[in-house]
């Protein structure tokens, strides 16, 4: 931390940390008197100055109507503190559990703003601390509004959702009313899949089927072959079929029950032949996606962790989760 270059920034960061430590985390937040703050904005100070000048002018020119105007504005400003505060007070914020993402893409946070009051709430904004980009919404009376924020996670793994700020300037922009929110939810970030990764590794011969030929010779990976008349419907790789139909050729692909029996696809750090763990994890993530796309059955070995053979979305989630937290 360059405390010498920017003592101001350093102080601000310290202050922020101190403050954040005092915000209890939770996936729901009900804004009350206790967690809402209010301070005048620059425009608010400007109005104070304007009022002072108007008052002096009224005194100097002995304008009773000038007094009335000045005091009416002052009254409006005073009421606007109340209105501003009430805009946030009683609002309920709910964070939808964030869906896991790959590193390198941004995580989208969906926040539901729930208003139980009979009147609407206007001009409410939500933002992350960094970057400070406010997204604005109105919440209808006895209804709710949804806001979406996104942030780019710095690394893979299970990590906390960054603190959120909620604010309003409504109605006159004289006061900023805001609250901090530290969600409890954590977001899972998978390793970034390698962009151009080598083909899947060869399957391993099944234990107990000694002497069976390696399937690496098979031109179609993981026991997939062209459809033959008479293949059972359950053997058809529908995912591939859909792709084929979309591309115009109606070549169907079936699972080769024989091949399935002959070998099993195991993905592991060793199979990547990479020394750098992160790169290896990236490659494994790419392989998992590829195997899933092909509808293969596969398993994952990661040091002490082993994900048993399987296929489908659940298997993919399991494997990616294992990769993320490795």
């Amino acid at each position: 931390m360059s405390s010498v270059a920017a003592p101001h920034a350093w102080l601000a960061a310290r202050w922020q940390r101190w403050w954040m430590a005092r915000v209890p985390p939770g996936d729901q937040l009900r804004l009350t008197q206790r967690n809402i703050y209010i301070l005048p904005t620059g425009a608010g100070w400007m109005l104070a100055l304007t009022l002072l000048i108007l008052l002096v002018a009224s005194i100097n020119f002995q304008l009773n109507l000038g007094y009335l105007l000045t005091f009416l504005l002052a009254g409006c400003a005073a009421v606007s503190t109340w209105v501003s505060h009430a805009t946030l007070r009683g609002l309920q914020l709910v964070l939808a559990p964030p869906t896991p993402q790959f590193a390198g893409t941004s995580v989208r946070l969906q926040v539901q703003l729930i208003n139980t009051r009979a009147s609407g709430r206007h001009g409410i904004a939500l933002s992350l601390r960094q970057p400070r980009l406010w997204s604005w919404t109105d919440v209808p009376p006895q209804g709710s509004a949804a806001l979406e924020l996104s942030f780019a996670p710095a690394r893979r793994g299970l990590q906390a959702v960054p603190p959120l700020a909620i604010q309003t300037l409504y109605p006159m922009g004289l006061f900023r009313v805001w609250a901090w929110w530290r969600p409890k939810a954590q977001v899972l970030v998978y390793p970034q899949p390698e962009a151009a990764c080598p083909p899947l590794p060869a399957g391993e011969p099944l234990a107990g089927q000694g002497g069976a030929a390696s399937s690496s010779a098979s031109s179609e990976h993981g026991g997939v072959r062209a459809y033959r008349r008479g293949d059972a419907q359950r053997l058809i790789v529908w995912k591939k079929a859909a792709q084929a139909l979309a591309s115009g050729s109606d070549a169907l692909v079936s699972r080769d029950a024989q091949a399935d029996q002959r070998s099993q696809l195991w993905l592991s750090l060793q199979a990547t032949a990479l020394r750098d763990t992160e790169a290896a994890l990236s490659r494994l993530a790419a392989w998992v996606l590829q195997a899933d796309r092909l509808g293969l059955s596969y398993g994952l070995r990661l040091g002490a962790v082993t994900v048993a053979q399987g296929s489908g979305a659940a298997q993919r989630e399991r494997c990616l989760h294992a990769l993320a937290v490795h």
Partner: protein
Amino acid sequence: MMQRLHSLPRDTRDTLFLLLVVACCIAPLVAHIPPWASVLGALLLLWRGALAWRLHPLPSRPVIWLLLLAVTGFTLASFRTIVGPDAGVTLVVMLLALKTLELRARRDAMVVFFLGFFTLLSNFLFSQALGVALMMLLALLGLLTALVNAHRPAGRPSLASSLAAAARMALLGAPIMLALFVFFPRFAPLWGVPGDDTTGRSGLSGQMSVGAIAQLALDDSVALRVRFHTPGGEPPPQSALYFRGPVLSAFNGRDWYALLQPEARTLGWAIPAPAELQVQGEPVRYEMTMEASRRPWLLTLDVPAEPPQLPQGMRAQMTPELQWVTLRPVTSVLRYEAASYLRFRHGPRERTPMLRPYLQLPPDSDPRTRALAQSMRAELGGGAQALVDAALQRLRSGGYRYTLEPGAYGQNTADTFWFDRKEGFCEHIASAFVVLMRALDIPARIVTGYQGGEMNPLDGYWTVRQSDAHAWTEVWMQERGWVRVDPTGAVAPGRIGTLQRLQAPRGAFGTALGAVISPSMLQRLRSVWEALDNRWTQWVLNYTQERQLDLLKRLGLRDPDWRDLVRVLGLLAAAAALAGAAWVLRERYRLDPWQRLMQELHRHLRRAHLALPEHLPARTMARHLREAAGADAEPLADWLLRLERARYGAAPEEASPAELRRALRRLPWGALRQPRRPGAARPENGG
């Protein structure tokens, strides 16, 4: 066009609305700023509107700087300064119009709002009448609406909803405004109010060019309001209702000047003869409310012997010509009490050298009037009364006509009146009359002021308008002193006696209006408006420090001063804070009827040992209860389903919370009561 208006981008719509509001703020000022500023302001606003309409980009910064420079230059050229009220107002208006060209970010919008507030205030420098106040209230609401609208960045909120929010804020702010208005201590001006700036202001002045009052005759605005403290509020006879203003004694052939004016000194005036006032009889007491005239004269009914009772900090003194003047020009509505004697004598009884200036005429002026005077003297001798009578007789029978449109008078105004035009109104007549008197060697002078007025039947106030402005004369006579002579009465007796005024020629609008609304109806409407306007003046504009302290006295304080006012304000603020705290507590404990109903249900359930978690929805609770209590729970389950329908169903005829509460209490709770055992109803999520 309407369709385009609805399909405009939100930014454009907001900008056009703000421009409209800005135009409303500026519009009443057009009469008070130089014409170039009005034209330029209108052009700038139109330009900005066109840019917004066509979605064109805003002008670049150098263009705006150039315009700013030009505007400052024009202002300097017009006023020789950029400080002071008039130049300041012009500059604020110009800045406001210019700033709209820069309306990009929120900060710029805020600057427009603040300049808008200044513009609103500067309107009050010129008029604080009820009409202006109402218009400014509208403009203020417009500004607040635009401000609220600017702070609703999401979507396309309707202006009506922003207006509602702004009006609500203003309404809630009104009590604060009232408290501050009533109790905020009124101070004397912090620095001197700039003096007698006469530009663009109607009313009497210390100078009269023959023909100038013609404009006043068309000005319907109120000059004075009088309430007579006579039994029954009866005014003195109308023929005695002469409200004395500036006395014009110095004459240069065309213009008449009061002795306070610097021009009078160049005409060789020294100290005039002393007033030497003697009064008789009982005075008429009255309360006078004078509109701001920006001049030092206090209008009084002829003639008070004692100074009028002025608000604190003001003093009045009598000039030798019997006017009451203050040390400071009257810059705001001023109310004072006075007592006037209708029977009085003033001026020296004997002819003194001090009267000589009242005989002055410019050399070589009005030769035919001088000739007329010579022939009159030759005929009638030196008796002043006989000469005055003869002159009045000439006015009565010489074919002279009273008109508001006499046309322009050239050089030798008296000659023109007596011999050529033979028509004019009070000032032509009075001027010609005084010239004739002076030519006859009778000291004479012009008195300007107001004559007559009308009573508002609604509140009993006597209203004197600018159109009641009048000029009459005073001639000096041996042993009688100054005597009031109103030569206009000789030409048009109706002008003085019954106060029937000449109708100013009505424009096309007036004629059209007259066709729709009968004149008597118009008269009544005007009475109502005037009464309202007068209430406004009496209550709001006349709310001075004195009345503040009076109020405190009535509240029971013995010897109040401004510190007590501050104390009252502090007390009010404390009370407001307490009320706010009470409100917060109330809000914390306030539940909506449904929540209260659910609480009551849970109370009953706990008593029956059927407690269920409070977050369960009604349908789930019904299921749990059926499982836990079997058939006994059936009515309760039914009730819960009814509650669900009433709360979330679409049908409007469902039971209200009150009905449901009654039904809840009638449920067979006795049969439902379970022996106490844990887990009578399994708490469970979902369902």
